[in-house]
């Protein structure tokens, strides 16, 4: 009898432990599925669409290495003279955010995927806060719009949102995709050939001169007008950006994407991102630009928002592939 109870206890214990690992037993832990649900609730996607940045188009080009970043990271794309083909996607999220996602593919099958935004820092510091923000931005049944009290509560609890709001107010809206800066936002750990580690963020600075928009002009900007603008610009030749790595020093907030590092930090010009063509939707629609798909020489930094982006993109990809399969 005792033996039977012991066997049941062992089996039961294993099942309970598994259920805990699978997050079936609630324990106040934020799951990737719950975060993805909240992203969907704040902005219901069409079937088969990305759960964020649904509107976009595909591009192609290359990354030309300067060789200067090799002492920071041993990633093959940074080798002197290396030219790495890339596919990418330009997209928007709301009126404010413009994004460039890239997939650099190396000969040996390694890939570097990045999802860059025109905002140099993130509105919030942690994945949990981002989740709270999405929950507060959900349309409420009664009004079809978010609950202002819920939104105010989140803003009060998270003052970093104000910093972002202030930046957004004063930031100059650029005229298109080509004259815009793009940022990694999150930090990554770079490892060089000797094993030395550094935390980096990077920025793509356009070669095209920035053309600021007057407030009235910016009202007429749409995803289509932005897409047409880049297509027209590419008729006149490739569009290029300089990729600059910003290297953190001890004490910098490397795990907090809502805080920028001092402007005096070391900068290393890693190379040029050159976009040459707008391609068909089938070239990038089924790509998940997961920013944690990295080559040897670049690693996850531990930034919780970066981990959350990767997790939510993966769940979003699974859901939209399932929807596409059903059609």
């Amino acid at each position, binding site marked *: 009898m005792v033996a039977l109870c012991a*066997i049941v206890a062992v089996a039961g214990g294993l099942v309970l*432990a598994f259920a805990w690992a699978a997050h079936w037993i609630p324990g106040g*832990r934020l799951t*990737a599925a719950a975060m993805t649900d909240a992203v969907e609730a704040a902005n219901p996607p069409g079937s088969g669409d990305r759960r964020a940045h649904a509107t976009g188009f595909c591009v192609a080009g290359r990354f030309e290495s300067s060789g200067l970043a090799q002492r920071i990271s041993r990633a093959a794309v940074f080798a002197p003279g290396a030219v790495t083909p890339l596919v990418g996607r330009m997209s928007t999220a709301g009126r404010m955010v413009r994004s460039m996602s890239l997939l650099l593919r190396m000969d040996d099958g390694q890939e570097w995927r990045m999802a860059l935004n025109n905002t140099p820092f993130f509105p919030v510091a942690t994945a949990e806060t981002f989740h709270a923000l999405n929950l507060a931005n959900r349309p409420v049944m009664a009004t079809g719009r978010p609950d202002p009290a819920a939104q105010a509560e989140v803003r009060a609890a998270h003052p970093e949102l104000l910093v972002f709001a202030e930046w957004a107010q004063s930031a100059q809206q650029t005229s298109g995709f080509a004259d815009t800066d793009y940022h990694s936002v999150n930090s990554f750990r770079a490892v060089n050939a000797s094993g030395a580690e550094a935390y980096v963020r990077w920025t793509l600075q356009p070669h095209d001169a920035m053309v600021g928009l007057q407030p009235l002009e910016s009202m007429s900007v749409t995803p289509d007008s932005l897409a047409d603008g880049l297509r027209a610009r590419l008729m006149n030749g490739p569009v290029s950006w300089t990729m600059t790595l910003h290297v953190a020093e001890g004490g910098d907030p490397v795990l907090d994407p809502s805080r920028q590092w001092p402007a005096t930090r070391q900068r290393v010009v890693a190379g040029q991102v050159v976009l040459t063509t707008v391609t068909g939707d089938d070239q990038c629609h*089924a790509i998940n630009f997961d920013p944690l798909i990295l080559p*040897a020489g670049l690693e996850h930094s531990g930034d919780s928002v970066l981990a959350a982006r990767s997790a939510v993109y993966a769940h979003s990809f699974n859901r939209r*592939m399932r929807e596409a399969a059903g059609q």
Partner: protein
Amino acid sequence: MTTSHNTVVQLLHWVMAAAILAMLFIGVWMTASISDRPRLIAVHQPLGLLILVLGVVRLANRLLARPSPLPPSIPRWQVRMAGLSHALMYALFLTLPLIGWAMLSAGGYPVRVTQSLVLPPIAPRDATSYTLLREAHRVLAHALFALVVLHIAAALHHAWIRRDGVFRRIFPAGRAPR
């Protein structure tokens, strides 16, 4: 008196038992978690490949060196159940990693097993294939967990209730816990 399994079988059993249990827990945890996900995925792929390789070695060993028969005290239907459950486990040890590999291939993901080693794709990129393989991987992983729990329960049944010497066979001589 039933004879022990040979040393290769014993070693492979325990190494794979640890790897598979770890893998099952890592798999469900990494799918649900946010902050633990990157580290767990980095382990999941190389460990899956290891299980595939060990599974092939183990299968070859099983086909070349048949295990000693179970004691005659065990009813025929239980012997058949044991055989069936073991066959199912072998099948899952081999198909789960392959399904995972094919799933990633169909999703256009690089199959990364070390810092710089990427395996070639074994399936074409396709939304439907990806979705089916993803679901199959999930369902079969849960089935394997259920089989593992049953396997452990049955083993302890031999050890603590039947006390028929079967449990001792998977341990090196004199090492079986009481």
